[in-house]
């Protein structure tokens, strides 16, 4: 019997290696796998590349992981936001590498990694500072640049429901980056509010099919920010 459900955060995160690329779902607090990120702090992997929309806030979660010196590089669209002081200190001190990626290109690069597309052309960022060093080409008379797939070793995602095959649903705005990160990683770990019996998630409404999910752990917490 296939059973991807594990009983602890520690088990869910076991085997993550130093030097891994970790994709972290969520947009702000919504759909962010807070307990898995806290668990990664405990787990101990270092020299990480983290892919997330933001670069952490306050002194918890990703910010704490950075503060502990465990993150070598951040790939994100919006590093500076309210409370991103840890990022700013480390970055100014030259202790953190940064790759800024337009938000849509960030999502598409992960979707591409999941879908077997090593590179694609986009007009986003063509002719800007973020196009530096990238191959440029015109299509339909318009400048485009070539962007590369962005695969992860690990994805940490937050689901609303999950079953033992790893099928997931997300709640409302909590979907955001989670499905594309689940596609893009070799090891996708989902924390979920609810565990459902196999077959209880309607097959027409599965948001992330279990093929993209390796481990599921229930974290019956409240709403985001709680």
């Amino acid at each position: 019997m296939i059973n991807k459900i594990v009983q602890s955060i520690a088990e869910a995160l076991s085997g993550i290696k130093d030097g891994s690329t970790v994709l972290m779902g969520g947009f702000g607090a919504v759909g962010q796998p807070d307990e898995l990120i806290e668990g990664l702090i405990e787990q101990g992997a270092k020299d990480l590349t983290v892919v997330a929309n933001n670069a952490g806030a306050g002194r918890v979660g990703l910010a704490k992981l950075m503060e502990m010196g465990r993150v070598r590089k951040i790939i994100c669209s919006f590093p500076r936001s309210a409370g991103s002081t840890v990022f700013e200190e480390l970055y100014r001190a030259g202790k953190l590498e940064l790759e800024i990626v337009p938000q849509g290109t960030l999502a598409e690069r992960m979707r591409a990694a999941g879908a077997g597309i090593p590179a694609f052309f986009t007009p986003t960022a063509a002719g800007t500072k973020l196009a530096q060093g990238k191959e440029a080409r015109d299509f339909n008379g318009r400048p485009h640049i070539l962007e590369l797939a962005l695969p992860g070793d690990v994805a940490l995602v937050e689901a609303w429901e999950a079953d033992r095959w790893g099928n997931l649903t997300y709640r409302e705005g909590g979907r955001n980056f989670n499905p594309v990160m689940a596609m893009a990683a070799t090891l996708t770990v989902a924390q979920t509010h609810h565990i459902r019996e196999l077959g209880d998630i309607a097959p027409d409404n599965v948001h992330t099919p279990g093929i993209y999910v390796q481990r599921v752990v229930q974290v019956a917490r409240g709403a985001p920010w709680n």
Partner: protein
Amino acid sequence: MSSFTRQQMAARVADDIPEGWFVNLGIGIPTMVADYVPMDREVILHSENGILGMGPAPAPDKVNAWLVNAGKQPVTLRPGGSFFHHADSFGMIRGGHIDLCVLGAFEVAENGDIANWATSENDSAPAVGGAMDLAAGAKRLWVVMDHTTKDGRPKLVETCGYPLTAHGAVQRIYTNLAVIDVVRGRGFVVREIVPGMSLADLQAKTGAVLHTDS
């Protein structure tokens, strides 16, 4: 001499949005535009984080923590709204399905170039978010911003000095002093000026030649 308030600027933009458009509103004054579209004129608001059909902000005791806009403020969902993931959301933007995007800007050039994400070439950790995707992808890009900087320098210019967000993307600019179209091959064309201001006064606050259709 009078100038439009932020509320008036937002209302003025709202006036120009017809029913049925899919619209993405940036952070700041653009977000306020939603408050001035009457509910019976159905305009479908898109948010980068995977939402179509956003409604107004909820009452403080009705906040749904799972429902935020791109600025991470609480919002509501109208009947007919839907959720989808980030790549699908930006597929809508980048695929040219969004009828209109309204953004703030540091500068707009007379060829439609927009700079709104980095304040200097040396700003090595600027926050781009979805601005480049929106500027490159939306069918129309309108900018809402003050006509000049706080210290009086023009924000409508011949050539942007700040790092670009996108080339030739802006079609219209709503400032606290005027509504100005960006016409390909022609440059800035004034459509409206705040009451009591002359074209010459406006020109004096603008870094490129202003044209009129008259």
